[in-house]
């Protein structure tokens, strides 16, 4: 029943979709920047949970879609999890050894913290992506953040290119298979395959960039003295959203400080 991707979800109505895109983006980016310096599991999971609640409540995104959108983030976080658990930057208390592999408590905790962080970024990215109409995003970049139209429309082109990356890759793979290009095994074969996929991927991207730019220039999107059919404005609910995001995040941090669990970056990554 649910076939659409997270990039198409903005077509559905939700309270979150009515929030000004620039405000939404700034809220998400500020939370992400802040989360980068948080290391303890309690604060990280609370901020992730808060994002997920916003996504379900205000965004009305279906749980299955959220899970699917977060899948790449989970995979990525798992990579960091096992690398940090197996190879801590400094030796700590060893939990148990399995052959040559020693699992240390510090490494595991760092790994889990990296994993959670990837998830937090995922949730707050999806929060923006799943509820934002791309055109409104560009308009609010120009109207609220006074980004030059040329840059804003370039950003739109790049943003619209994101969901088609996977499709392009599948097409290239299909085209290679159709022409009977063998998928050789081994490290050498793998490297060859990566090169064979990368070049058409980049060429396709550049071709797309050229076409999009020509189309946009022909419509005068790069002009400076242009008028706008639709105008994005700031409303009371935008302020309410920002206030809600920042006050809840601040309370989570305050609670972490109060209960003594908050761990901020001490100036070094990977202790």
């Amino acid at each position: 029943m649910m076939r659409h991707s997270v990039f198409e979800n903005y077509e559905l109505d939700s309270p979150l979709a009515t929030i000004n895109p620039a405000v939404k983006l700034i809220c998400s980016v500020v939370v992400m920047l802040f989360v980068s310096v948080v290391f303890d599991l309690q604060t990280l999971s609370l901020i992730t949970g808060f994002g997920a609640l916003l996504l379900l409540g205000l965004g009305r995104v279906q749980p299955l879609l959220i899970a699917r959108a977060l899948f790449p983030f989970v995979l990525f976080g798992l990579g960091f999890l096992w690398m940090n658990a197996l190879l801590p930057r400094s030796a700590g208390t060893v939990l148990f050894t399995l052959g040559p592999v020693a699992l240390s408590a510090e490494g595991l905790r760092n790994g889990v913290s990296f994993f959670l962080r990837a998830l937090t970024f995922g949730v707050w990215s999806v929060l923006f992506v799943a509820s934002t109409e791309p055109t409104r995003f560009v308009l609010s970049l120009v109207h609220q953040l006074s980004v030059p139209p040329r840059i804003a429309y370039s950003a739109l082109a790049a943003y619209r290119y994101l969901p088609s990356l996977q499709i392009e890759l599948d097409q290239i793979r299909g085209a290679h298979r159709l022409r009977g290009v063998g998928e050789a095994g081994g490290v050498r074969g793998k490297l060859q395959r990566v090169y064979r996929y990368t070049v058409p991927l980049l060429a396709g991207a550049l071709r797309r960039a050229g076409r999009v730019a020509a189309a946009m220039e022909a419509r005068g999107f790069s002009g400076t003295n242009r008028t706008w059919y639709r105008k994005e404005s700031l409303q009371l609910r935008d302020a309410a959203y920002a206030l809600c995001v920042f006050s809840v995040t601040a309370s989570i941090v305050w609670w972490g400080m109060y209960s003594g669990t908050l761990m901020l970056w001490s100036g070094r990554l990977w202790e």
Partner: protein
Amino acid sequence: MSNEISNDISNETTNRSRPLPPALRPSWTMRETVTLAIIGVVFAFLYLGWVQVWLVVQSMTGPLAMDVLMGFWFSGSIFAAWLIRKPFVAFSTAMLTVFVQILAGNPSGAILLLTGLVQGAGSEVPFALTRWKHYSYPVLMASGACTSVFSFVYTYFRFSYWELAGGLVLTMLIIRVVSGVILGGVLGRVLAGAVHRTGVTSGLAVDYQTRNSE
């Protein structure tokens, strides 16, 4: 004689009246900004894939893996600079890829902005020294090497390399510079060359300059 003079004059007038092709003007065209933005997106995902390669290699061979593999994370800047040939292309590509990576969930987070700043500045220096006029292999390789040096100084402080033995630090530096030259400079140029041969770069600066030099 008079023929020669008139020839000279007509040459001069055509030179003066012929506008520079858009790709060689100092200001940015829409084509170039869109191209740069899309290169940033694609390379951000290639870089994220490379992070996975690094995680696997690192867990098998240890921390030196980072220095060996580092160069690929510079290749996007060199790729874009060779194609677009404008001031600050390399720097902007580095910042853009970092920004996309953060949104796409690289758990290193905001610290990546600093990484992008350092590496972007490093890759821009050799281009700036040639006043953004030369994009030959040596310049591109110098850009890769310079990025390596910048990023090494940065990781020296970030990961407290002074606690390590001097010989090891020197080995790491050398490995990283070689990686920057090969995986950054040469690979970035090879990828850009392959893409250029497909013909999709027509209208970009690289297209004008390679055609006029031939």
